[in-house]
């Protein structure tokens, strides 16, 4: 049962990663690319974390996984914000 | 505390305190650490002479688990020579790199870097573990690069970068060989590896490590970084860099060839090393002949002198039976390294003292040196005698030993190279000595006091004394001398 859940959630997570990567490659400008990366990839990572959590032996490990996901979200949000601010400034300067 | 641990602990503790403290306290701590390390080095030499080779298993762990430090004749010779040069360099730094003259940056940076360099040198001379040697030479390189960059000008910075590239590439090649040694034998201790089961990969490992160490020793054709780096640094730093630093990687090379893998020493490889040595002698001497700056002449001379060290490889153990002392070539090589270290440091400090007075080290600005600072000028001349190899200096004894081995072994070619190299050295040192003693009408200069002038003179006298009183050092060198040095490779 746990294995099945892992397969399912990891698979869904991988799907989001693929979608995010396609978006990253296909979208025209910095902003939409960031959008694809942060939204889809963070969701994908969330699903993979969830899938992995089913393999955890203790609640503590699952909590650590959740913490890692939270930190990645925080970092991704901050970085994408900084990148887009920089890109906006560059566009305005042109 | 045992003297063996003290020669490592004292400079390291001195460096750490020198970083933490500031101002005068830094200098006082550094000088105290220098004096302490000198005392410890002499005590270590005394105890090795009376008790024989000393061995320390660090942390009480025998190899292959732990690291072994060992003080044999070779390491003692190097440690004592290092101690003399270091103390002289730090004394001369007291007036040449004083905060009022050189600024707070240099006054802060010199002391920790110098003591870290000393720690690294002693660590390399004592260590019997190949990986520990790697960490040691990395520490040595970083401290040495810092000392080159201390000068601060653009030329010094580019010299430091050049040095860094060679040093890092050399370290990586050494590391590659080390990885192969561990892969094949599961041990890093020199003693254990000497008794290893030979593996096919040994030759490749030895070749990689040798190439890396050659780059670090600045043997031709890896020498291009040396003259700008040594010639561009501040004089007390140059004294350490030129007199001591190349010796560390050379000692590792000796340990590899004579203790770890004497069975892998193919005749062609030995001849190749000696051939590179000849090229270095010629190249360095010609380079020194055409330079017009004193420090560069002295630096190119180091390139040539490093070449001599490699001539010894095919001669090791040459006809030891006919020798008055067994392993004559080995002893001659160690004598050569020691007397070169002392003499080269004396030369750099002497030139540096004149430079700090005159403001330039151009050859034509050397006039008046002898009349203004007679003791310093005399030190330069005495050091030149050792470098050329005239009797009764240590350099003469060294060349005499190596040449006797060469002729006794019927390998007279190497002996001729030595003699020719001596002539070249005489040629490139003639111009500076002549200029130093030339009369000139220069205005009265604020000459440093005689106390400071004694410093280079002491080193130069030590280099000469090595030739006069050579029997005690000889006994020392027989302590723990590898069997391969007596039997030949």
């Amino acid at each position, binding site marked *: 049962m746990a294995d099945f859940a892992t397969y399912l959630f990891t698979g869904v997570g991988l799907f989001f990663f693929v979608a995010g990567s396609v978006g990253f490659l296909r979208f025209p400008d910095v902003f939409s690319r960031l959008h694809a990366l942060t939204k889809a990839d963070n969701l994908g990572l969330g699903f993979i974390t969830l899938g992995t959590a089913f393999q955890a032996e203790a609640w503590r490990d699952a909590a650590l996984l959740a913490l890692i996901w939270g*930190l990645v979200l*925080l970092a991704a*949000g*901050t970085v994408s914000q*900084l990148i887009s601010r920089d890109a906006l400034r560059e566009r305005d300067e042109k | 505390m*045992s003297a*063996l*641990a003290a020669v490592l*602990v004292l400079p*390291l*503790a001195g*460096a*750490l*305190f020198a*970083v*933490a*403290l500031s101002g005068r306290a830094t200098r006082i701590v550094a000088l105290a650490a220098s004096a302490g390390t000198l005392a410890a080095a002499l005590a270590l030499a005394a105890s090795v002479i009376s008790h024989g080779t000393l061995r*320390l*298993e*660090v*942390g*009480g*762990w025998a190899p*292959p*688990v*732990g*690291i072994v*430090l060992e003080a044999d004749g070779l390491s003692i010779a190097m440690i004592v020579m290092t101690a003399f040069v270091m103390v002289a360099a730090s004394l001369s730094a007291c007036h040449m790199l004083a905060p009022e003259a050189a*600024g*707070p*940056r240099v006054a*802060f*940076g010199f002391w*920790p*870097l110098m003591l*870290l360099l000393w*720690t690294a040198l002693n660590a390399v001379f004592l260590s019997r573990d190949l*990986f*520990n040697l790697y*960490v040691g030479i*990395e*520490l040595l390189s*970083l*401290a040495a*690069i*810092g000392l080159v*960059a201390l000068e*601060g000008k653009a030329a010094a*910075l580019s010299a430091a970068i050049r040095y860094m590239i060679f040093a890092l590439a050399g370290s990586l090649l050494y590391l590659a060989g080390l990885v*192969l040694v561990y*892969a*094949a*034998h*599961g*041990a890093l201790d020199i003693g254990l590896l000497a008794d290893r089961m030979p*593996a*096919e*990969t040994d030759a*490749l*490992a030895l070749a990689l490590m040798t190439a890396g160490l050659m780059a670090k020793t600045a043997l031709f054709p890896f020498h291009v970084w040396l003259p700008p780096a040594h010639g561009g640094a501040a004089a007390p730093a140059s004294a350490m860099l030129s007199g001591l630093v190349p010796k560390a990687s050379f000692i590792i090379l000796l340990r590899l060839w004579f203790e770890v893998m004497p069975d892998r020493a193919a005749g062609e490889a030995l001849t190749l090393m000696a051939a590179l040595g000849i090229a270095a002698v010629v190249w360095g001497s010609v380079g020194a002949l055409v330079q017009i700056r004193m420090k560069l002449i002295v630096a190119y001379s180091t390139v040539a002198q490093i070449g001599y060290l490699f001539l010894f490889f095919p001669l090791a153990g040459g006809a030891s039976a006919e020798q008055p002392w067994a392993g004559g070539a080995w002893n001659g090589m160690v004598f050569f390294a020691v007397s070169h270290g002392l003499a080269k440091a004396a030369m750099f400090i002497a030139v540096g003292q004149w430079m700090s007075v005159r403001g330039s080290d151009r050859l034509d600005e050397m006039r008046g040196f002898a009349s203004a600072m007679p003791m310093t000028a005399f030190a330069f001349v005495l050091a030149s005698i050792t470098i050329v190899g005239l009797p009764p200096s240590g350099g003469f004894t060294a060349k005499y030993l190596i040449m006797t081995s060469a002729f006794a072994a019927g390998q007279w070619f190497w002996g001729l190279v030595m003699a020719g190299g001596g002539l070249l050295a005489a040629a490139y040192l003639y111009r500076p000595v002549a200029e130093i003693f030339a009369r000139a009408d220069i205005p009265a200069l604020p000459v440093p006091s005689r106390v400071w002038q004694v410093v280079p003179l002491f080193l130069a006298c030590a280099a000469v004394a090595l030739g006069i009183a050579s029997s005690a050092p000889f006994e020392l060198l027989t302590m723990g001398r590898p069997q391969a040095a007596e039997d030949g490779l």
Partner: protein
Amino acid sequence: MTLIFDAMLCALTLGVALATVLGCGVFRTIVFFVVYGLLLSVAWVRLDAVDVALAEAAIGAGLTGVLFLAAFGKLTRIGVEAEPSPKRFHLPAALGCIGLSGAMAWAWFALPEPHRPTPDLSDALPRAGVENPVTAVLLNFRAWDTLLEGTVLLAALIGLWILTRDEDWHHRLGRLQHVRSGGVMESFGRLLPPVGTLVGVYLIYIGADQPGGAFQGGTVLAAVGLIAALAGLLRPPRITECSWRMALVAGPLVFLGAGVAGEVFGVGFLTLPGSIAEGAIFIIEVALGLSIAVTLALLVIGPPEGGDSE
């Protein structure tokens, strides 16, 4: 199955390494290098070397990458010309390098069989005072290596400070950061340090029993410090400030002190007798971790560069 994964990972690593070497533009090279480091840390997990994986991710990819990016930024500000572009394929060099790789590959297959004797640590490990064998090697069996290694870090930092221009010597380290107050970066800088500090301290603490230790934990702490400095919460110190320099040398000094204590009490240099080894290693590891954290952070910040707001 796992072999396929390994093969894909190796191919990807090699591809990224090639891109690092051959790609145009220094900025791209740096980005590829960081990716390369992350792939390598996965490889370390596959090689059953979790301690190394942590060190690689934190130091090899993370901190080294930041170091290169910071240097790239400085070079851009200085206004050096861009990289000269002509990148010809250099055949002799390529052949030589293929030869080197080939020699190493040959060596792998030529290694003595049966497998080399592994150093037998089973006698020594129970007396080492720690559960994690890698920590036992680092802080007990090969303590002299590790002490020298901490010294190497210090030597690099002193060497870096030496590069300061004389007129900048009394300024703060690095260049002053301007962050918009109330902006995203500032709130990130406020949010992260508590969690990050916890992670770093945990890594140092856990090092005795599980993967982790002074180097990995120290690096995390250094990163926390750097982010706090980026967010304007911490101001980089001046070289002339004594307290920071004390923090730099505290770890090596404690380590060296333990070594000398062994000598004084007659058990030998750097010897930690089994009965007190556990406590001694813990103290050394904490002191070393803090010193490493400060040293690494200052290495990345770099020498003082003046800056307008001083």
